């Protein structure tokens, strides 16, 4: 059947015209007769149809040359400038390992600050000549591990780290990343083993922080908290990035132990070090939402970049405040998760489960996603969304293995404790 593009376009135009006429007529009527209650429902549906069709309806030709179509990441930023120069240099000699590693590192850092996955793709492309090697140089191995870990390919990330650390046992960053990956997978003994070499490298502060980070989830929350408090007071113990890391662990541990005012002040201290770090912003937003302060979440994230996970928190806050952008952000999130499914990615299972449960109110689907997520990720937040979904589905059986696991590792978290109590 010869259905051409132009006829499709005509259909869309016709549909939009209908909606528009209908909308104008209804609105006129509402103003004339002041019959607001009847039209509320009617208009809500129309608003949805129109707002979706405005943004995603159909391609068009802008009417003026001066129309701004896209704002690029801040070009004035000196880091972007130097990365651009480095990229030009590298394109002239793509096999230059030193330059490639420097460029990839720069992009990775940029990706973390901006919470922008495109930089991960650029970093990987810079490493292309070495990417598919079984045993690339150690620097490439570490970067490949970081990229694979961000893409949630933990098995390959760990094998890269293992290889790199065999060749370079003094690679501090390698040990710390390995510990973090094992911790996220819930393999605490392996995480401890990755922290220990730091003592041999005479990096006592980092080693202590590394171990405290693991043990705060593994039955010694109060002790770890005290140890971290002690070392954070030492002047010049940490570089800024490390300080940010330790302060974030302190804040999260305090929140799990229900020391809310202390958590608040550690979050603030961490923000003073770096107010753009996407992980920190996410963790602080979660804390604020738990403290019933959605308006502070909005203030906090107003200037922040729109990564899926931050947008999710913003939308939950908007929902609690009945803010006008709620419906729009929900649509955006829906489109983002759909886009990531189209790509065949499984990156944001936890966020998608949270979206299903808290914003779309579909506990069954949320529980399914949370279970899929739990196969791999074992952080307190992963447990929490699963238990929350199970509680709403009244499905104690599904929650049981998670509850058992939490008991077996002795994870102390007041929010999780409450959920476990509610489920029993």
């Amino acid at each position, binding site marked *: *059947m*010869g*259905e*051409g*593009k132009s006829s499709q376009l*005509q259909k869309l135009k016709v549909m939009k015209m209908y909606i528009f006429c209908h909308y104008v007529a*209804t*609105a006129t*009527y509402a*103003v*004339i*007769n002041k019959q607001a209650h*009847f*039209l509320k429902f009617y*208009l809500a549906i129309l*608003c949805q149809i*129109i*707002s979706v069709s*405005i*943004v*995603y309806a159909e*391609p*068009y*030709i*802008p009417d*003026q*040359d*001066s*129309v*701004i*179509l*896209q*704002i*690029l*990441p*801040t*070009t*004035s930023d000196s880091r972007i400038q130097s990365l651009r120069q480095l990229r030009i240099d590298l394109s002239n000699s793509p096999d230059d390992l030193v330059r490639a590693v420097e460029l990839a590192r720069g992009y990775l850092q940029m990706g973390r600050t901006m919470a*922008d*996955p*495109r930089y991960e*793709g*650029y970093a*990987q*492309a810079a490493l*292309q000549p070495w*990417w598919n090697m079984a045993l690339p140089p150690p620097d490439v191995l570490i970067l490949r591990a970081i990229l694979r870990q961000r893409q949630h390919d933990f098995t390959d990330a760990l094998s890269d780290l293992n290889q790199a650390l065999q060749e370079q046992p003094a690679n501090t960053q390698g040990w710390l990343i390995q510990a973090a990956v094992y911790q996220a997978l819930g393999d605490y003994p392996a995480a401890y083993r990755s922290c220990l070499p730091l003592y041999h490298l005479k990096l006592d502060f980092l080693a202590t922080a590394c171990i405290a980070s693991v043990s705060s989830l593994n039955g010694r929350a109060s002790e770890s908290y005290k140890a971290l408090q002690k070392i954070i007071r030492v002047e010049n113990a940490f570089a800024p990035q490390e300080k940010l890391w330790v302060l974030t662990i302190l804040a999260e541990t305090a929140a799990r132990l229900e020391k809310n005012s202390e958590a608040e002040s550690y979050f603030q201290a961490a923000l003073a070090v770096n107010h753009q770090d996407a992980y920190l912003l996410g963790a602080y937003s979660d804390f604020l939402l738990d403290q019933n302060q959605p308006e502070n979440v909005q203030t906090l994230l107003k200037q922040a*970049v*729109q990564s*899926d996970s931050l*947008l999710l928190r913003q939308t939950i806050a908007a929902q609690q405040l009945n803010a*006008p*952008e709620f419906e*729009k952000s929900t649509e*955006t999130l829906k489109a*983002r998760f759909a*886009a990531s499914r*189209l*790509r*065949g990615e499984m990156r944001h299972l936890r966020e998608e489960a949270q979206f299903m449960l808290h914003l779309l109110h579909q506990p069954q689907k949320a529980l399914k996603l949370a279970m899929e997520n739990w196969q791999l990720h074992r952080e307190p937040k992963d447990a929490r969304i699963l238990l929350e979904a199970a509680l709403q589905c009244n499905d104690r059986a599904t929650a049981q293995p998670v509850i058992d696991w939490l008991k077996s590792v002795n994870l102390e978290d007041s929010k999780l404790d409450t959920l476990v109590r509610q489920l029993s």
Partner: protein
Amino acid sequence: MKLRIILFFLGSVFTVFCGLAMAHKASDSYLRFTIDKNIIQGQWDIALRDLDYAIGLDDNSDGRITWGELRARHQAVNEYALSRLQVYGNGARCQPQIPEHLVDHHTDGTYTVLRFTVICTDAIDMFEVAYDLLFDLDSLHRGLLQVDANGQVQTAVFSPEQRKIRLDLKKSTPWREFLQFGQEGVWHIWIGFDHILFLISLLLPAVLCWQAGNWLPQHSLRLALWEVFKIVTAFTIAHSITLCLAVFGLVSLPTRWVESVIAVSVLLAALHNLYPVISNRLWVMTFVFGLIHGLGFASVLIDLGLPGQSLALALAGFNLGVEIGQIAIVGLFVPLAFLIRRTGFYQRYVLHFGSVLIALIACIWLVERSMAIEWKVLEWI
């Protein structure tokens, strides 16, 4: 209420600006093909950010890409993008023609939209696409492919590991055909303004009753709905009869004649609201004219190209689609009309003014169709 409306408009402005702001997701391009025999319509959405990274768009380096800057680089965009895309029909390379450039917004920003036609030598059974955009610069880039052929939509993803995709364009199944014709039916009542205006003209007075030379509001919803039911059913039965007869070739009238009579039917229906003569048996008039409208639907259906084997199924699907489209119109119109039937606004403006307007449009149609001229007065519809 007013506040709500204002909020809504602010909301839409906000969404447009949202498209400008930076949102974050990995890089994707959206590549869609609609295939009809040997002709392929292509649409390719590529993010401006990606194009800027690859070939540079921000001419004055102010961190903003304007339409002017993009327009100046259209030639470069064509060369860059199309050199990284190859289309094959039955193994032979087909050449894309020069694309038309538009823009669109996705969740992570603005995209350039290339619309192009690809002509292959013969009807395509085996469709193959080779894609090599951006993989050298961004290893996480993906090309999301959607191919629409014979009423079947297939999707696939290009990645650095999979740069070639081959699709077998099988013939469609009867069930799909049924659904597709159903969809066409819905659309053809929606874009067939004459049918809608006819229906609306008849429905306008359904919530009123004509007594002693005046329109009075109908008392109960039940009576109003009964009136609507009679009209809609009469229309449906009548046009179904002639639609079937025409499609099976038992009745055939000149299109120009049919179209003109349809215009007359709209005119009469509208005039009848202004000077009512029949008060109880409006459905009889509906039935008579419905027969003509059925012939109008039939010409649309025949134009779509009828499948040989599953004609009955296609016909049933199309007719069902027309009914669904019609019910949607009734569902939107009747509750609203019933609620405001007592107001002077309804009787004075909606009924009278609406009927006059419909009659006027019908007059224009009648002249245009009977004399086979186009005034372009109503081109916007």
